């Protein structure tokens, strides 16, 4: 690993020389930026660091998460720390999980022109246009599965000519799937009732009152499920 090799990047148009093994985020910090916006978990889970870039001489505009992408020579970088997604309000208890729901809440998904720019832009490699198609058909389970890895960075929506807020559509589909479509756990339900009935109260109280040496003994000799 050649730790000292440097590359040139353009942060918001200004040129900097940075070590080639940095991510876009750490390159900004190397350049002297004290980040407040456009930074979050720094591990690819929170979607705070949506970024647009173009390599000098290339036509294609590329998108990524700044914390998950290495810098390259002649990279023009613009951050997208906030994107105004449309978030509809609903009461998850009251909704009916059918096709009409999407028509009521997010009717713009039916204006999708099929350009697939969303999918091409997704830093998580999600088939975004495909999950929108599932949402259009009321196939919430498929929409939920296809969109599961979404970090809601909003890059897809920034590229959409139809003004769709894809991450919000997907989130609604997942909540519907989790709440209404996947069967409830019977064991879980049973256990909650047992606890409410006080079934374990005595066991725990007895355990809590035991002298610590006795508890240590119980712990060190407990059965471990294989």
């Amino acid at each position, binding site marked *: 690993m050649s730790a000292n090799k440097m590359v040139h990047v353009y942060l918001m148009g200004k040129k900097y020389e940075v070590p080639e093994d940095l991510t876009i985020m750490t390159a900004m910090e190397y350049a002297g930026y004290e980040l407040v916006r456009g930074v979050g978990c720094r591990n690819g889970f929170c979607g705070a660091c949506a970024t647009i870039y173009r390599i000098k001489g290339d036509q294609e505009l590329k998108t990524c998460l700044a914390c998950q992408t290495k810098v390259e020579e002649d990279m023009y970088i613009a951050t997208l720390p906030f994107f105004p997604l449309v978030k509809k309000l609903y009461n998850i208890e009251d909704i009916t999980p059918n096709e009409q729901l999407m028509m009521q809440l997010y009717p713009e998904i039916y204006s999708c022109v099929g350009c697939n720019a969303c999918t091409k832009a997704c830093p998580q490699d999600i088939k975004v246009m495909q999950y929108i198609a599932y949402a259009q058909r009321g196939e919430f389970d498929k929409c939920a599965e296809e969109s599961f890895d979404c970090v809601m960075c909003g890059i897809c929506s920034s590229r959409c000519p139809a003004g769709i807020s894809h991450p919000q559509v997907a989130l609604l589909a997942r909540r519907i799937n989790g709440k209404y479509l996947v069967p409830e*756990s019977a064991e879980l339900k049973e256990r909650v009732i047992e606890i409410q009935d006080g079934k374990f109260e005595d066991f725990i109280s007895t355990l809590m009152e035991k002298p610590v040496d006795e508890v240590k003994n119980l712990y060190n000799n407990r059965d471990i499920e294989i």
Partner: protein
Amino acid sequence: MFTEEMIESITKVEAKRKVNAALEPRRMSADEKDEVLRKFHPDYIKEQFVKLEMGVNKGENVPLELADLLQGKSRIKASSVNLNSPTYDVDVLVIGGGGAGSAAAIEAHRAGANVLVTTKLRIGDANTMMAEGGIQAADKPNDSPEIHFLDAYGGGHFAAKKSLLKKLVTEAPETIQWLNGLGVEFDKDASGSMLTTHGGGTSKKRMHAAKDYSGAEIMRTLRDEVLCEGIEVVDFSAAIEIILDEKGHAAGAVLMNMETKELCVARAKTVIIATGGAGRIHYQGFPTTNHYGATADGLVLAYRVGAKLLYPDTLQYHPTGTAYPQQIFGALVTEKVRSLGAKLVNKEGDVFMHPLETRDVAAASIIKEVRETKGGITTPFGEGVWLDTPMIELKNGEGTIESRIPAMLRMFSKYNIDIRKVPILVYPTLHYQNGGIDINTDCMSDDVENLFVAGEAVGGIHGRNRLMGNSLLDVVVFGRDAGKSAASKAKEVTIGKLTLAHLANFEKQRTDAGITSKTESPKLLPHYAREV
């Protein structure tokens, strides 16, 4: 991509993989665990700790870096804040927009309180979002809350505050049900039964998950619910001091706009601190799995108004932080990787420990393997041991990695490492603040009336070490309970005259104790910008 030494070692790992995968390594005895912790766990390095010289915990040991913040200077003078015209005037002020803060806000709102959530970054920017592996609850027929209690109590070295731990384990199943009812997706079989696995130190398979996005799935759903319920959320607004009233009860906070630095006042009948952990303090120079905003702010805010801390001297180092490549150095490799069958092996390809010891024991054992046994693999910036991920598919069949731990597959594939085919290099990384603010079963500080705490800022739920899957659980259990308690308490509170007189008192205590450090706290964010 890999160095020659790594490639040579991988060949050995591959040669022994089949035998290693079938192996059930011996678990350590209690004495062996004690010894490895004493000799190799960072919490046991005496010179990294110092006695506090002032405040409620005076005389107790805390990490050097935390002492500097707890005994730090306020960012403001009382005179720079106008307490007479609060910008916000609410029943319940929730400081922090992570899992605990969001759960608290939802329950307080549902209990009829007027709620404000204030957070220094965005709602959902939190360690909750980054939790990968899962959430514990004893809902299987062969399991029970008291077995869960015993696992957690023993795993935490019999130091947990029992009343809090009891709450954690008995409310766990209902918490999962509540989350599922909000629409959180859990891994289930076709009948709806939860797919559960072991975590380090569990005696029953009670780890529930949403692939390896468990925390993200919970966090994005809670955030959506906060927004759907119309709860007011103010982003990029950090609490920098708790405001008291003339009776010495918590009555709001001074908020600072993170971009403009403008100050404003939020007055509230009750206050919930849900500010999370401290990984970005980088104790002892360790890298961290934590969120950018994890800087122990809540502990500082609480300590300045006289709330006692419990176990602030104990941190959790996650055994498997990424040791290579550099771009993701310190990033979390979820324990679920080991739950699914990957084992820890050294440079000779030998398994050197049971993969599911508790986190403190596992971290100490890895450090021992590198420092004492010399079984580590050298990287360009340190050392690590192998976590043999291809074992997962050897054991559970092809496709398991993609379906159960897609985030791990993605994280490494960005650097051309296919974890289905090659093992990954890991080393302990700073992960969790075991200690925090001492609370009672109503989630309130016994020292400061009307000051509630939930989530990672609480101390004592887990004792001196926490099991995997008990933190996602505690943020929701204690978040909800804090929200309910704070809303209920707010009904009987009449706020007195607001004051920041405690800032001058604190400054006097600093002077009296001879503390001359210029450090301002709370820290709010780490400083990563290079001096240019």
